[in-house]
């Protein structure tokens, strides 16, 4: 379908599965505010800022109803001022200073995951590293035993299948049963830790008192959100990032030679491949945006990956450049709902790229394999990333 045709252009028409750069180019070429069934799509950073910094009109309250959580998704489905209360309570747990002490333990766990791989000469980066490490980080952060890892992976996959924002919601009995098991597990955990001091985030959340005290339902809702928002997003960002590094050996060599570039690489790879590239809001009243009149109840979706390719903000926006300096990408969102876990996510990604390239500087995508993206769905990631690992000096 050419850009000039008048027939409706839909979300499913985007070629995200095989060529996501082409998909974002296609949608950007249609303009800054585009009818993209079933939503209005924003592809321009200034329009996203204008909308997302006006939460009274561009509301989150019903925007996540399709996630099918049994409890209100604290705090993403809340607008100010309620939202600010949760943010105030939660932010200190996710601050850089709170996160930093996790680094040595997480680095140790990563080295343990990655070190055995070179002997195999091949691996699936998604299955072997990207999908397990964020779960371990979550368990470590919450003070849960690491042997719960595979159980959590199964639960997480089930609730994500039940909550796909694109609407393709599973009605599979096993998924429903798994989601129920997670709910039961979290309920029992919350009951057991309530009022019992401990160094982990969950215990600290449950020990809050006075105005900050959270009910059991609020804490379980939060745990669901952490599982929904904090696991696959990191997995997907890592899979995309490693695919770009595998395809661009010159850029990869830069971080092998100079690990101090890894933080800039994390930002640049996130700019190119946000794992949550479609962020929805629903208008509470008729409003104007980008020359369009939007009736109340319009679903407006920020196309983050398209916004991140704005030529005015990024010279050579489709290129990978670890020396951009400022990289004000929108991959963690824009406005008051900006990702609560951004500092933790950044730490996880930095550690993976650092440890991987320290231990395995030479790798390539398995011959004949074409990575494909899980699509259509609300969050995107690679199904698999088979790599061949070439022997070479580890640092």
């Amino acid at each position, binding site marked *: 379908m050419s850009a000039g045709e008048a027939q409706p252009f839909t979300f499913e028409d985007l070629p995200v599965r095989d060529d996501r750069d082409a998909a974002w180019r296609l949608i950007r070429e249609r303009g800054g505010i585009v009818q993209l069934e079933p939503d209005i799509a924003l592809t321009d950073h200034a329009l996203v800022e204008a909308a997302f*910094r006006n939460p009274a009109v561009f509301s989150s309250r019903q925007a996540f109803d399709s996630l099918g959580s049994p409890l209100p998704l604290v705090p993403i489905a809340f607008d100010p001022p309620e939202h600010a209360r949760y943010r105030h309570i939660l932010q200190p747990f996710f601050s850089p200073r709170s996160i930093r002490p996790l680094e040595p333990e997480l680095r140790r766990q990563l080295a343990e995951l990655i070190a055995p791989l070179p002997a195999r000469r091949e691996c699936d980066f998604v299955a072997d590293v990207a999908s397990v490490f964020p779960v371990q980080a979550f368990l470590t952060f919450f003070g849960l035993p690491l042997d719960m890892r595979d159980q959590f992976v199964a639960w997480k996959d089930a609730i994500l299948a039940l909550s796909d924002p694109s609407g393709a919601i599973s009605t599979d009995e096993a998924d429903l049963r798994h989601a129920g098991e997670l709910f039961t597990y979290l309920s029992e955990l919350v009951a057991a830790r309530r009022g019992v001091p401990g160094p982990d985030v969950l215990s600290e959340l449950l020990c809050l008192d006075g105005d900050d005290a959270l009910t059991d339902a609020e804490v379980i809702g939060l745990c669901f959100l952490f599982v929904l928002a904090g696991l696959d997003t990191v997995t997907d960002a890592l899979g995309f990032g490693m695919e770009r590094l595998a395809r661009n050996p010159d850029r990869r060599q830069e971080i092998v030679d100079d690990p101090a570039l890894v933080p800039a690489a994390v930002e640049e790879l996130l700019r190119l491949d946000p794992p949550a590239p479609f962020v929805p809001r629903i208008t509470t009243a008729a409003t104007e945006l980008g020359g369009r009149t939007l009736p109340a109840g319009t679903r407006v979706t920020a196309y983050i990956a398209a916004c991140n390719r704005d030529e005015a903000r990024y010279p050579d926006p489709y290129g990978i450049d670890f020396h951009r300096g400022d990289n004000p990408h929108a991959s963690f969102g824009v406005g008051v709902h900006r990702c609560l876990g951004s500092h933790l996510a950044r730490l996880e990604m930095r550690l993976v790229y650092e440890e991987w390239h320290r231990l395995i500087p030479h790798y390539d995508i398995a011959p004949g394999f074409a990575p494909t993206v899980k699509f259509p769905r609300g969050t995107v990631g690679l199904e698999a990333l088979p790599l061949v690992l070439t022997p070479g000096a580890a640092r």
Partner: protein
Amino acid sequence: MRVTIDRDLCVGHGLCYMLAPDVFHDDDEGYGQVTDDGPVAADRVEGARRAAGSCPERAITLITATATATATAD
């Protein structure tokens, strides 16, 4: 130019001290703090402006000699 953070509005996104670490720092709970109450050095003004424009809560105010304005995006 001077710069202030409204503690009632700040919820600790942490963009200011990431974007302009020579103007802002984080406190124990991750909230942004202005490191020096005095005038912002000329070579730090751009960073302060960028941080103010990026603050998701619009909690940062730039105070110039002639006018006071809560920064708007970009």
